[in-house]
């Protein structure tokens, strides 16, 4: 015969924790929101920079390309200026290089868009994008352009329409998706035409380098750098700071902002838990009086704080993902931002929320454990 108490769940520390947190739902929620600000910042910013790294790697790997070559010693990739013919020939003479495709990057206003990247590529070299065309075809003449999928939406055009570039109409013949927001938010036009628009005749910004079969990419990068003091070769996004420290700077700012947000979060937790311990001094005294050791009281306070941290983590991840997605669809930024949500980001969010919950609860937990039961029972 079943006992009527069989269905009753026994009291546990976890159960007391949940009861204490849900007994003051607004305070728990407000504290969690305060703590989640730091998590939101970390998740959003890290997802955005991870997206940028992914875009760089996908740009490097465009078509058969395996590395990019820029002018050495520049402060930003867009400032790189290379002689298309001279540098191109020099690169193609390098052992391991099958082909060097010059690309001129020129940001400019395009119709309704105040800022859009236009890449100039010689028409025969457009085959570099062959595998990425999702609609239409590659340009076959200087009067035709290819649009990245994001740029197409931004310009609200369809294949066969014309696009005005600095007063001259170009026919849109195809759409490409490259998995790199810098490319998907751009237009691809004939190199001579873009050089003319930019006033940079004979110049390119970078070379996409296709290697010979079996070539060791790492050794090739070292060889290009060693043999050409005026060039910098990049085979992975992690080396991109050689031509543009922007991402590194952004990453530094992310951690700076995040540390401030984390400190504020820890103070919020500390304040809430301190108040909670003060309010419950008498209850803590009762628990001590009935034989709870100090460490059990400490554990209870830390578990409550971790509970707040868990809620903060959930709110922070949701908020961070939402914020990154919002930024990626805003008209001003959608051509440059395509967040990547990696599992590691969420693990970091969980660890940070947990760590600041514990750090914030240390002082209150210490106070709770230190209180003498006799004094606590007298506490009004």
């Amino acid at each position, binding site marked *: 015969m079943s006992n009527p108490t069989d269905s009753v769940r026994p009291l546990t520390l976890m159960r007391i924790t949940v009861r204490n947190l849900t007994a003051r739902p607004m305070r728990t929620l407000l504290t969690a929101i305060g703590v989640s600000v730091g998590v939101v910042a970390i998740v959003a910013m890290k997802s955005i920079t991870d997206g940028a790294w992914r875009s760089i790697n996908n740009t490097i790997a465009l078509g058969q390309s395996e590395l990019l070559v820029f002018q050495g010693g520049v402060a930003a990739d867009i400032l790189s200026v290379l002689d298309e013919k001279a540098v191109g020939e020099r690169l193609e003479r390098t052992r391991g290089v099958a082909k060097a495709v010059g690309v001129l990057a020129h940001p400019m206003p395009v119709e309704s868009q105040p800022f859009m990247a236009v890449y100039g590529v010689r028409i025969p070299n457009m085959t570099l994008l062959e595998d990425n065309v999702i609609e239409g075809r590659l340009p076959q003449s200087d009067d035709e352009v290819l649009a990245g999928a994001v740029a197409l939406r931004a310009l609200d055009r369809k294949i066969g329409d014309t696009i005005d570039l600095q007063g001259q109409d170009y026919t849109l013949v195809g759409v490409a998706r490259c998995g790199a927001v810098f490319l998907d938010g751009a237009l691809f036009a004939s190199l001579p035409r873009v050089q003319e628009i930019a006033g940079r005749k004979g110049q390119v910004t970078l070379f996409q380098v296709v290697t010979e079969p079996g070539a060791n990419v790492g050794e090739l990068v070292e060889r290009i750098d060693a043999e050409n003091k005026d060039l910098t070769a990049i085979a992975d996004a992690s080396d991109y700071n050689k031509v543009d420290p922007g991402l590194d700077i952004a990453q530094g700012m992310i951690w700076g902002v995040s540390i401030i947000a984390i400190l504020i979060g820890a103070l919020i937790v500390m304040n809430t838990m301190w108040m909670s311990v003060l309010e419950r001094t008498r209850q803590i005294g009762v628990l001590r009086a009935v*034989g709870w050791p100090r460490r059990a009281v400490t554990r209870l306070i830390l578990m409550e704080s971790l509970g707040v941290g868990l809620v903060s983590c959930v709110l922070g991840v949701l908020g961070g993902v939402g914020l990154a997605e919002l930024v990626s669809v805003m008209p001003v930024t959608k051509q440059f931002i395509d967040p990547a949500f990696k599992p590691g980001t969420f693990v970091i969010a969980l660890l940070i929320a947990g760590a600041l919950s514990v750090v914030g609860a240390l002082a209150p937990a210490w106070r709770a454990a230190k209180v003498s039961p006799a004094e606590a029972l007298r506490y009004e």
Partner: protein
Amino acid sequence: MNDHMPARDAATDTRDIEHNRGVAVTARDLKRHYEDGRIRAVDGVTLDIRPGNFVAICGPSGCGKSTLLNLLAGIDRAESGSLRVADRELAELDETELDEYRRSTVGLIFQLHNLLPELSALENVQTPMLMTALSGRERVTRATELLERVGLGHRLHATPNRLSGGERQRVAIARALANRPRLLMADEPTGSLDSQTGAQALDLLEALRRDQGVTLIMVTHDPNVAARADRVLNMLDGRFVD
């Protein structure tokens, strides 16, 4: 709200009851002062309590009754003197041993029931048992039995704010009995109750004491309560007086 307290039924309920479990309490020249000795809450108390006795400690407010009870319960430490309970000198116990003493030897009933407001009656009674080796199922079973014994079998899941004053005090009594204490101490247990409910609570405590043979020490300044004790100790200015 049903405030009926079946003290007699509880008294005849012999399940899980061990007789003659009371402990002897011996204090010699026990002192507890505050504020650099300006306040002499307990000032040289000497007493002997035999196992199973019901002792009432009486006296006006501020005479040191509650401080003495705190010392006996192990929730405060004396500055000097000797205090032996169940052949253990409390001054010699370290922190962990004192926790264990409070947990396993003592059952405490406060004037203000001091129940945890977020927890149900059943959960409140389990709080002292959480720190023992009992399994979750054993805790629930024992807490249910105790609440049934104090006449609250029908209020297991009610939180303190849904219980009457008398019911809360009965939950507090059940909680005090959770770990089968050998020394039951009550600080003005009827102080916040009306006379009828207070009398019922006393009936219950006396019945439990009689059936389980535990030592019962009760602080009170109610002469009617004191009259029910085996022995009455009067306190004034931190000392016992005739």
